C-alpha cells in the first residue's frame, strides 16, 4: 500500500459557463454502426440508379417507401421498381432545420406520389424556384453519381416541360 499514491493530473480543464448553478460543457460524439438490415437492397438500388419500393406478395399493396412486411396484412413483400417519374403530393421549403442540416438550408422537402403505388416517398426537390413549387407538379428522380448509401442519393427535379403541364 502506498499512502502517497497520486492520480495523474491532466491539462484539459473544463469549459465553465456559470458558477451558481455550475453549468459546464460536455462534449458528446460517437461513431455508431447503423445497419440498414432488411432495407439494404433499397440503398444498393440507389447506387444503381434504381428506385425500389416493395409490393406485398399476398394483397399486392405497393409501397413507395419499401417495407419488408405489409402493413395491411403482415405478409412478406417483394422488391418492386418504381417508375422514375411521379408527382409532388405535398412540399415545404425549410429555412431552418436540425443542426445536421442547418448548413443546407433552405432546402425543399417533398412527398412524391407514383402511378400504381399506394404510399408516398420523402425526398428533396432541386432546381424549382420556391414560387413555382406546387402540388401535382410532375417530377423525375435523379441520382448522385457518387453514392453515399443514404436516402439523399436520390432527389427529384421538375420534368422537362412541367411548367406547361
Amino acid at each position, binding site marked *: 500500500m502506498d499512502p502517497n499514491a497520486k492520480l495523474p493530473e491532466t491539462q484539459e480543464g473544463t469549459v465553465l459557463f456559470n458558477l451558481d448553478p455550475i453549468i459546464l460543457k460536455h462534449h458528446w460524439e460517437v461513431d455508431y454502426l447503423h445497419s440498414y438490415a432488411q432495407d439494404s437492397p433499397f440503398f444498393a438500388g440507389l447506387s444503381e440508379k434504381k428506385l425500389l419500393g416493395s409490393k406485398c406478395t399476398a394483397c399486392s399493396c405497393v409501397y413507395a417507401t419499401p417495407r419488408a412486411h405489409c*402493413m395491411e396484412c403482415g405478409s412478406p413483400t417483394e422488391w418492386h421498381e418504381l417508375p422514375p417519374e411521379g408527382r409532388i403530393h*405535398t412540399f415545404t*421549403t425549410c429555412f*431552418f432545420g436540425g443542426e445536421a442540416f442547418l448548413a443546407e438550408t433552405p432546402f425543399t422537402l417533398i*412527398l412524391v406520389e407514383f402511378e400504381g403505388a399506394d*404510399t408516398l416517398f420523402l425526398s428533396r426537390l432541386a432546381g424549382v424556384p*420556391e414560387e413555382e413549387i406546387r402540388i401535382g407538379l410532375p417530377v423525375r428522380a435523379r441520382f448522385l453519381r457518387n453514392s453515399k448509401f443514404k436516402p439523399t442519393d436520390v432527389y427529384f427535379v421538375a420534368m422537362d416541360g412541367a411548367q406547361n403541364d
Partner: protein
Amino acid sequence: MTRPVYLIAGGITKFAKAHPEMDFRLMCKQAFDYALADVPALTLDMIDGSSVSYFSDHFTRQLMAGIMVHDYLGLCPKPSRRIEGGGATGGLNIQNGYQEIASGRMDCCVVVGFETMSHVNTWKGNEFIALASDTNFDFPVGGFYSGYYAMMVQRHMHEFGTTCEQMAHVSIKNHRNATFNPYAQFPAQLSVEEVRAAQMVATPLTMLDICTMSDGAACLIVASEEVAEKVCENPVLITGIGTGTDAMRLADRPHSDVVLLPHESGADYENLRYPGVHSFRGGRLASKLAYEAAGIGDPREALDFVELHDAYTSSEIQTYEDMGLCRYGEGGPYAVSGRTFMPGLDYGLKLPEASQVPVNPSGGLLACGHPVGASGIMQGVFAFWQLQRTIEKHLGRAELQLAHPKRGAIHSHAGTGTYISVSILERP
C-alpha cells in the same frame, strides 16, 4: 370490471426556456410538492407508486431518469415505471396512471413528467426530436419536425382551402389566453400580420405557428374513489381514455374510409381520400374510443372545453377535425368562427360567433411551452383545475375560469400523428 379513477391534485413548474437552477428531479419534486400541498390529508405512505414520463434520453443524458425522480420523491421501494411515447408521452402517462387505479393495482399513483430541453441549442434540439422519425428513410433527408408538419398542412390547404390567416387565429388565441396564465412561457398579444411576418421556418409555418422548447415538469395525483373521498373535497373523474396510432413514416399513409364518430355518417365524407397526410386517423380513433368510454354522442354538445396538442397552429386545426369538433375539411373556418375562443376575452379580432367549446384555455403548447414529457400532464392539470373551478386559486387570477364547466377533453399527440391519447375528465 374497472374501478372509477379520480384526479385529486395537480402541480406544475413554470415552463421556461431553461431552469438551470433545478435538475429534472427537483423540477418534478416541485410540481409534486405543489400537488401534495393541495391535498394535505394525503400522506406519502398513502401513495402506492408512480408513473414517470420523459421523452428523450438524448435531452436528459441520463438513462433511467424515471427511477431517479421516483427515488427523489421518496417513493422507493414502491412500484414505478417510465412511460415514453414521443410528444404524447405526458398524455400516455396519465392513461398509465388511470390503468394503475382502474385495475386495482394501486389506490393512489403519482403521475409526473418532465423534459429538460435547454441542455442543447435549439437546432441540435430539433435534430434530437427528428430522431423520432425513421432513421433509414426520413431523418437523413433533412429530419425536421416543423418540415413534416408544414408538408401536412400544405396538403390540408390543398384539399380543403385552409389558409395561413386561419392558422394565425389559433396562434393569436392561444398566446392571448396565456397572458392570463402565469405558468406560461410565451404569453403574447399578436395580430394576424405579426404571425405571418414572423421568421419563416418551413413554408407556410412561421416561428409564431410553432411551439418553443422548454424546461418544465408537471404532476397529477390519481386515486381510487376511497382515497379521493378521504383526502379531496372536489376530485375530478376520468370517465374515458382512448389511444390511437399510425405508421411512423408520414409517407406510409394509405387511403381508406374515415373512422366515423357517433354523430357522423359515411355520407359526410363520400369523396374524401383519408387520412392521407392531411389528417390524423390515430387522433380520430383515440377520440372515438374515449368518447365511447365516456358515453359521449356529440363532442360539440358534450364537451365544455378541450386542451389539445397544438405544437403547431396547423395541427390544432387538424385536431379539431379528428376530435369531431367540426367535420373534416371545416377546421379552417371553424378556427376563425369564434367557437374555440374564450368567452369575454378581447383578442383584437372580429369573431362572428360566440364561444362554444374553448380550445386551449391555458394557452396550449404554443404559448405555455412544450417540455415534451410534461406537456400532456400540464394539459391535464389545467383541465383538472378548470373542472374543479379552482383556476383563480392556482393561477392567482380568474380570467381563464369558465363559468360552469362539467366535462373537458385532453389530447396529447406524438410524431406525425403516431401515438395519440384522448382522455375525458368530468366533474362528478
